[in-house]
Each structure stands twice: as structure tokens, then as C-alpha cells.
């Protein structure tokens, strides 16, 4: 029996790629039993992504997969096999929650919609995650995080005013949708506890991403105004931006809000230019922002990013090193202190560091277990969860349904 805040919950996990599995990873890390359905015929494509442990490819060696699927049971099942759907339904009957992120229509094709599943388990909670929704004119579009990012306006707002929109190079919506999906899911679990009723949750990457742009949307619907890219600027603070520091491609972000200006100047040693009248007020600094940024960068360029951050923070001014992977994984003492990474032992990969959660529960902290090898838990699930006899299990193996 797994331990944790969600112990006792069992999840049937149809998800693939990144966003869906993140949801079930959080469930798994906090004590839920997650049965991840996988197939050799069509394995989760993440299992084929680099980087691989030690640089050696292998279906169980993908680091990305290992980080995103900790503690889940891998159950190989071919849904296209004649017996496949029945097994899926049997599994569903033992689970509280079903999560999927196929293209809309796929679960219908398999006969595994919410309506179908409630016939098997009337109080099932089903979560369908998709790019644009289960219905609607574009619901069948093929979308992954990068295109959703563009659709959601994130690209439009990211970049320099005088250049093309760039957005993020990772599919940012993939790391927005999981939180909303989990919230809705936990609310449904609580609802079921109180009323005995399950329900269906239809959550999309586009709509959840739009939440993160809500003020800009309201500015349009209420004021008819189109916002745009501002580089690193902030409408109501100056200096505000990312400044080059000593070293190669080393930068520090600094944000000076109105009350911080005297402290900021003090850190710089109250240089003569900082006393000039055009910089005394916020409006003045905004009007002369280019010159201001140049003057600030003259100072930061002579110092390491860490020094800049440290001096600023000591003076109560917001600042942060633009950290790269090495900074985050190895150098940043704060991450270490927070124990953001846990070490997990994997039968094939060996020991690897895995991110935990961005929150810490005091009574039920999460304990990571390794991600599963493909098909590692078929026997366990069949015999211990589905209660099959050894004989039945062997027959099914022979049928090829577990391919």
C-alpha cells in the first residue's frame, strides 16, 4: 500500500507525453496507485526522447520519462487487441479515477467514454485533457504545447517590441494545465466523498493557458486595447530588466519598484547620474528608460551575476541571476536546502535526481519511487488488483493482449 496524502486512491492512466503524465505523477508521488497503460506497439513517445541515461538509448532509459512517471505501475495493454477493451474496462471497475489526454474522439472509438465507464462504475471520476476541448470546431486539430502556446497568446506577449514574437522554447501550456486539472480532480474527489457521485472533467490547455493572460484579455474586452511585447519592461517600475554581467552569457534580472529606488541607488554608491532630476520620479525614469538601462548595465557588466543579485537583495531590491541548468542543479543553495530534487534508484538507469513538487506537505511529504520499466507491473496488476488466477493471467499473456 502506497503511503501519502492520497493513499487509497487508484487511478487508471491513459495519458501520454508530458502534460497528462504530470498530473498522474503528482497523484502517484502523493500516494495514489496509478496504473499507466502502455503499449509496445505504440509506446509513450516520451520513452524515445533524449536525453537517455548515460547517452545510451533504451525504452527504459529516457530521463524525461523517468522524471515524469515516478511511482506509477506500467501495464502493457494493446487496446486494439480484441480482448484489450475488456481488460481496460475491468481495470476501470477497480479505479476511482480515469485520466486521459488522447485527441478527442479516441476514447469514443475505443468505447471508453465517460458514459461507457459509468455503466461499469457509476461513481467514476474521469478527466479528459486536450488541447482545445472535447467538442467544438477545432477540437480535432492536432495540437501540442507549442501550437497551443501560440494560440493562447503567450507568444504574442513574449519577446522584444521590435522583433518577432518568440514565446518559450518549451511547450509552456504543458506546465499550466496540470495544476488546473489536479485542482478540479481533487474537488471532484471531495464531492464524491460527500455525495457519492462521480463526474466528468473536460480541461483544455488553451483555456487554462488563457487564465495566465487574464488581465490582458480583460484589457481588450473592457478597454478595446491590444497589448503587446515589452521585452523585459514593466509598465510601473524602472529600472526593470535583465542586465549583462561579467562572464559569458551571464545576466541578472533586477526590478526596482517605486519605493526601492533610493536603496537601489545606494547599492550603486549613489552615482552622480542617479541624482539627476530626470531619474528622480518614476515617470521620469520611464521616459528616460533606455538611458537608464544603459547606465545600470555599465555597473552590472563589471560584476558577476551572483554579486549583483546578492548586493541588491541585501538592500531589499528584487534581483535574480538568470540561472542555467548547472546553476539550478548544482549551484543554487536554495534548491538544495528545499530538497527540490530527490534521488531515486531505477533498475536500469541507476540513481537519478528527480524533481518533487513545488509545495511541501508537512504531514504527508511526497516520497518518490522510480518510474516503471515498460510492462513491469502487468502480473502484479492482474493478479493482485484484478484478482486474476495465474491460469487466467497466463492465457491472457498467450493471447497477445499485453503486447
Amino acid at each position, binding site marked *: 500500500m502506497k503511503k501519502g496524502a492520497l493513499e487509497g486512491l487508484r487511478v487508471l492512466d491513459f495519458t501520454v507525453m508530458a502534460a497528462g503524465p504530470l498530473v498522474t505523477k503528482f497523484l502517484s508521488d502523493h500516494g495514489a496507485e496509478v496504473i499507466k497503460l502502455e503499449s509496445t506497439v505504440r509506446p509513450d513517445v516520451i520513452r524515445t526522447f533524449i536525453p537517455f541515461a548515460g547517452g545510451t538509448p533504451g525504452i527504459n532509459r529516457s530521463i524525461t520519462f523517468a522524471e515524469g512517471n515516478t511511482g506509477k505501475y506500467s501495464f502493457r495493454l494493446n487496446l486494439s487487441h480484441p480482448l484489450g477493451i475488456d481488460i481496460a474496462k475491468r481495470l476501470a471497475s477497480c479505479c476511482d479515477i480515469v485520466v486521459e489526454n488522447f485527441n478527442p474522439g479516441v476514447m469514443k472509438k475505443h468505447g471508453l467514454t465517460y458514459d461507457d465507464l459509468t455503466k461499469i462504475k457509476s461513481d467514476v471520476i474521469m478527466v479528459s485533457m486536450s488541447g482545445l476541448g472535447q467538442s467544438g470546431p477545432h477540437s480535432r486539430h492536432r495540437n501540442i504545447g507549442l501550437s497551443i502556446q501560440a494560440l493562447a497568446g503567450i507568444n504574442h506577449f513574449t519577446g522584444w517590441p521590435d522583433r518577432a514574437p518568440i514565446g518559450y522554447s518549451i511547450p509552456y501550456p504543458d506546465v499550466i494545465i496540470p495544476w488546473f486539472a489536479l485542482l478540479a480532480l481533487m474537488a471532484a474527489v471531495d464531492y464524491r466523498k460527500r455525495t457519492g457521485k462521480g463526474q466528468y472533467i473536460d480541461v483544455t490547455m488553451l483555456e487554462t493557458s488563457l487564465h495566465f493572460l487574464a488581465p490582458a484579455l480583460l484589457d481588450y474586452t473592457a478597454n478595446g486595447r491590444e497589448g503587446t511585447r515589452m521585452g523585459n519592461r514593466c*509598465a*510601473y*517600475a524602472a529600472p526593470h530588466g535583465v542586465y549583462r554581467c561579467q562572464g559569458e552569457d551571464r545576466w541578472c534580472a533586477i526590478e526596482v*519598484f*517605486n*519605493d526601492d*529606488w533610493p536603496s537601489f541607488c545606494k547599492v550603486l554608491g549613489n552615482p552622480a547620474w542617479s541624482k539627476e532630476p530626470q531619474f*528622480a*520620479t*518614476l*515617470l521620469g525614469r*520611464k521616459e528616460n528608460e533606455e538611458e537608464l538601462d544603459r547606465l545600470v548595465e555599465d555597473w552590472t557588466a563589471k560584476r558577476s551575476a551572483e554579486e549583483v543579485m546578492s548586493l541588491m537583495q541585501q538592500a531589499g531590491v528584487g534581483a535574480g541571476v538568470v540561472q542555467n541548468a548547472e546553476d539550478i542543479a548544482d549551484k543554487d543553495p536554495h534548491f538544495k536546502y528545499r530538497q527540490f530534487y530527490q534521488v531515486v534508484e531505477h533498475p536500469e538507469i541507476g540513481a537519478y535526481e528527480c524533481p518533487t513538487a513545488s509545495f511541501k506537505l508537512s504531514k504527508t511529504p511526497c516520497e518518490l519511487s522510480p518510474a516503471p520499466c515498460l510492462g513491469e507491473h502487468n502480473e502484479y496488476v492482474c493478479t493482485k488488483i484484478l484478482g486474476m488466477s495465474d491460469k487466467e493471467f497466463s492465457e491472457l499473456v498467450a493471447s497477445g493482449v499485453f503486447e
Partner: protein
Amino acid sequence: MIPEKKTESPLASYRALDLTDENGFLCGKIFADLGMDVIKIEKPGGDAARRLGPFYHDIPDPEKSLYWLAYNTSKRSITLNIESPDGQEIFKRLVKTAHFVFECFPPGYMDSLGLDYQVLAEINPGIIMTSITPFGQMGPYSNYKGADIVALAMGGLMQLCGYPDRAPLRWGLEQSWPQAGAQAAMGTIIAHYHRLVSGEGQHVDVSVRDCMIWSAYPSPQNWSMVKKIVGRTGFTAPRGHLNLRLNHRCKDGYVAWMPWRGEVTKKLVEYMGEEGVGGSLRETDWDQVNMEEVNQEQIDRWQDDIERFCLNHTKAELHNEVMKRGLMLWPMNDVKDLREMSQLLARHFWVDVEHPELNDTVIYPGPPVKTGEGYWQIRRRAPLIGEHNEEVYKGELGFSESQLVVLRQAGVI
């Protein structure tokens, strides 16, 4: 009744910047009701004093403080953080075209922001700055924390109020605040008259505590005249060697009466006589009586007789009769009685003030003074927080909308 005209106020062309708290609201209100453009400058989010109750329908919302609404009528409101350099620059721009500045900050605060009288006078030599603090700008108590009860205690009033067997008392509704506000307005307008004649502005330094000393009569006078310490005498008031009851029981409350030489008491005795009551009051020659020669026993007899008479009548009965006959006997009223008082209704003292945001019309006390030229009026309800930001910042100072958005986000307005 001579009808009141409504001509343009002599103060209409002036502007006041009002940074007061509860100690000074009434100062600005008086000038605003007199037609001056009084701009209440509140910190972003609203004056702290908006947390003072009671509240409209008991909803403790900053736009529903009845204290705030009562004493900030006719003003405009802008929000401004004068602790920020942006805010100080804006304030100084406003001072250029203002005629008055009212403030209630602790002594030294305006100095620390570079906004003291000297600086403002350099910007605008004719400016009159009125500073209201608990004890004044300088001196051993200037940094003392004030409170209404402190002003009443140290103003000498509490010494006199209450019963000898219990603690001295303060008013159940703060009085030092309106006292300081009204007296500050008085000092301000005196300084203003000087400016009319000479062109000079000046600094008016108001001490809330000192404003209460008038109300301590007869305490300081007894000390300076007869070296006597006057204390609490309960339901009576000292008058030289006598203790007079100012109020007497009647059927449904109390009425105020005291013995007074002449016609007023003679007519009262006549009235009492019509009901077969008189006693010791009837026996006195009210034309000749010399209060200095009356003793306490006599006073007590008179008072007992009056009370015996009044106990047969309600406040309303007595007052109606008294008005007909011109006697000096008045009911002890509460606010309900005041609202029903014929005298106030006849003079149209109560004013309806529209509150569109409450979807209501609220009844307020009207101006304290009626004038032939009619320019002392409640002109509109107290302003909402920053209600006139656009009018002033955009319309007058020429800020653009986007600049105002920046200033708002930066906590300047």
C-alpha cells in the same frame, strides 16, 4: 422669513488641499460648504479615518463610514502618496495654484518629506498652511500621541464632568475633533483676511487640546479669580457658591431650567400657577432677586418645586407651552427628538443629500449658519476615494491616461 438667495460664494475662487484626518475634517468641510474648492488628498486606498464608525447600514466599508460622510461634504477627493518623490512633485504642482493647505500629520512629518511651510511658501508665497496636531508643533508635549479622551482630559473639561464617586467623564461622541476642525477654520480665515489686505500667507498652528480649554469653563476662571479647584458635582453645575441642577425630571425624560432674574421666571410662575403649582418659586420677587444672596437651601427648594411641576408633563407638552409663552425651559433631547423638533423642521435645517452609489438620499444636518447671500450650503455628498482623480490629474494637470495607469500601479495615486 427672508428668503435665502444663492449667490456666488466669496470663497469660490480659492482652492484648499486637505490632508487632514478626523481632527481636521470639519475645517475643510466648512470651507467646502462655503463654496471653496477643497480637495481631499487621501493616500491610495483611502483615508485611514474611513474606518471610523458608525457605518451606513452597519456595513464597515470605507465608502460607508458615517463619520467620514458627515464631515467631508462638498469636498472633492484625489488619491496621492506624498511619501513618494512622484507624489511630492505632484503635490508641489498643486500647491502652486492652491491657497490653503490643511494637514494633521505629526510635527516634523511634513518637514521630513520636504513639504513644510517654508518650502511651500517658496513655491507659493501667499500659501496659508494650517497644521492641526494634538498639542502643537513644538514644545514638551508636541510628540505626545493624541486621542479625543486625552484632549478632553488635558483640556480641562473632564475634571468637571461626571459624578464625584466615579471617574471623570468624556462626551459619548468625540468633540475634540469637530472643535479642532471648526477652530482651525476660524484661524485659517483670519489668516486669509490678513492675506486679502497684505498679500502675505502664514502658518496656522492648531493644538487640539488647546481648542478644548474653552469648554473647561469655569475651571481656569475659578483658579485665576479665587484660587479654587472646581471638581465634579454630578447632576449639578457650580455657580459661585451654589450648585445648580441644570436638568429636571419630567414625565418622559428631562427638561433644562435654571433660575433667572426677570420676566422669564415670572411668566413661568404664572404658568405653574394656572395649574395650581407654585411653592417657593411663587414667593420670590424675580425682578429683585440677587443670585449672590441666594443660599443652597433656597435653590434646592426652587428646584424641587420645578421638578414637581414638570413631572406632570411630557417634554413635548412642556416645550409647546413654553414656546407659546416665551419661557426659558428647554427639553433634553436625543437625536430622535432633534429630528422631530418643530423648530428645526420649520427652519428647514435638515438637508437631503443624494448618494447615487448607495441608491439612497440621506438626511444630514444643514449648514450651521444661514446668510442673506445664501452661500453656506451642503453642495454634495462627501467624495468617494479618488473620485476626482481624472478631473484633477487628467483634466487639470495634463497627465495622460497611460501615465495615470503607471502612477496607480506604482502606488503613487
